[in-house]
């Protein structure tokens, strides 16, 4: 307390405007968040420096954390972190948590941390505040992780009524996983681990819902049945730890040529065996692709070459590519709709 009382004073607001701005430009994102909480003016100052933050995710685990990616760092604002068994078992509403911990993590180490017990902002207000002070973080995910099942989903729905991106890992309770889907769908993008379901298979009633993007999130290695791919009418399907066989891939490609999955733009999936043109492209007419610049999400403005071009009955072209990483083989399909190619 004495240290606080004797803390040095510096009249920041009396500096010339460019100097005060220079001070803010050299602050860490954690310091900027604390500064932004002090007044409307401070909040506007932080907004005006346009800090280069990236995607924001609201992560439910045992506690709740708002996570913002900043290059190699993670800014984490944490609430409801349980310290006792009783706190762990309590059902959690999203009110105005008294305790807040803000930290910056780099390579899984905390490099700066600050906590206080006099928070006056509700969770929703925190999200709105962070969206305002870091305007580059308007891409928001709602993530349910392990042990998040204590959070009241009605309350979550009330506070975040229009969630565009939802990510669900196995929370530890299958019933709760189901409840998340029941309460929070529809969304534009869904990332879901197959082990959220007892049979480790994402139900077709979910896949059929016309999401723009479907990600099969990280979890134990699973198989994607061909029918599950065919029923999925999404633009992008990405499977991180789910696989199909080369033979099934061949069947999928043939069906796509005949008109299946008309919306698909990008598919990335693990294959359970080695990629060979002989099996994967059997019975399909193809040719080596010409160099093309892609206009799709993570491949935006990337020039691609070396794949195999196939053509659908209506004339739409797609490229099939294969690559190996960490001893695993991946197959990708990029469909060259007009908007997917840089002219």
């Amino acid at each position, binding site marked *: 307390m004495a240290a*606080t009382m004797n*803390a*040095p*004073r*510096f*009249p*920041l*607001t*009396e*500096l*010339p405007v*460019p*100097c005060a701005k*220079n*001070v*803010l*430009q*050299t*602050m*860490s*994102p954690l*310091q900027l968040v*604390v*500064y932004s*909480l*002090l*007044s*409307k*003016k*401070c909040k506007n100052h932080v907004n005006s*420096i*346009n*800090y*280069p933050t990236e995607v924001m995710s609201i992560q439910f685990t045992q506690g709740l954390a708002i996570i913002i990616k900043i290059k190699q760092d993670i800014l984490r604002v944490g609430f409801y972190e349980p310290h006792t068994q009783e706190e762990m078992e309590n059902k959690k509403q999203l009110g105005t948590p008294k305790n807040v911990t803000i930290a910056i993590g780099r390579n899984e180490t905390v490099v*700066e*941390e*600050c*906590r*206080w017990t*006099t928070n006056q902002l509700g969770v929703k207000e925190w999200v709105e505040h962070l969206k305002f002070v870091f305007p580059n973080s308007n891409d928001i995910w709602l993530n349910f992780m392990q042990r998040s099942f204590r959070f009241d989903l009605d309350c979550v729905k009330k506070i975040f009524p229009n969630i565009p991106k939802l990510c669900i890992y196995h929370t530890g309770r299958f019933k709760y996983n189901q409840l998340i889907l029941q309460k929070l769908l529809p969304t534009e993008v869904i990332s879901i681990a197959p082990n959220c379901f007892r049979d480790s298979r994402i139900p077709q009633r979910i896949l059929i819902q016309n999401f723009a993007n479907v990600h099969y999130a990280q979890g134990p290695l699973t198989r994607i049945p061909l029918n599950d791919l065919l029923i999925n009418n999404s633009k992008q399907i990405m499977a991180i730890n789910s696989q199909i066989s080369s033979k099934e891939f061949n069947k999928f490609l043939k069906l796509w040529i005949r008109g299946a999955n008309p919306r698909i733009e990008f598919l990335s999936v693990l294959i359970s065996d080695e990629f060979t043109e002989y099996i994967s492209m059997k019975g399909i007419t193809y040719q080596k692709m010409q160099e093309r610049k892609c206009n799709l999400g993570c491949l935006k403005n990337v020039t691609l070459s070396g794949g195999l071009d196939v053509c659908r009955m209506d004339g739409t072209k797609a490229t099939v590519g294969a690559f190996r990483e960490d001893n695993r083989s991946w197959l990708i399909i990029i469909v060259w709709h007009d908007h997917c190619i840089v002219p």
Partner: protein
Amino acid sequence: MSVENAPVVDVDEAAIPVEKKMYYRFESNDKKEFRVSELAIQQSETLNRLVEAMGYTSEDVENKPAIAIENIDGKTLKLVFQWCEHHKGEAIPVDDGSVPKIVEIPEFDAKLMDIDNGLLFKLIWAADYLNIVQLLNVSCKKVANMAQGKTPAQLRRVYLLPSDEEDEAAKRAAQEAQDPRAREVEEEFEERKRQGGNSFF
């Protein structure tokens, strides 16, 4: 105090022109005089332009009065010129406006800035006025470092930041202190804004 009687502070002995090294004489607002090498002056865009415009020869420097820097005191100017002498010849960083600004405080600068906050405040003003980019960066970084580990309540005390209510009260007080006609115009303007009308301009 006359110029003749003013104390002369040699910022850096090495900077005194033993050979034909060019140097300049400056005087603070409390009549302290400083001899500073030409190379050190290049760290300050303002002073560099000034001496270029003056076109002084070595004789002019000796015969004419020291160049007066009227809004910086001797204690602050001494720090400024010590910094410039230490960093003379170093490249001047270009501020491209990118954020975050990565600034490391070198050991020499840290020792130089081991001063009370009143003097640090004056040093920043001086660095800004004299346009010494890197001195401004390191001194601002020192101020930014004061925020480390502080809660909102602690940070408010450190930076003496007013709350929204205090900002409002200050604004009202400033309005009341204004000329009554100017206040009327402002109130009319605010009223039009509330009604969704265009501004006067």
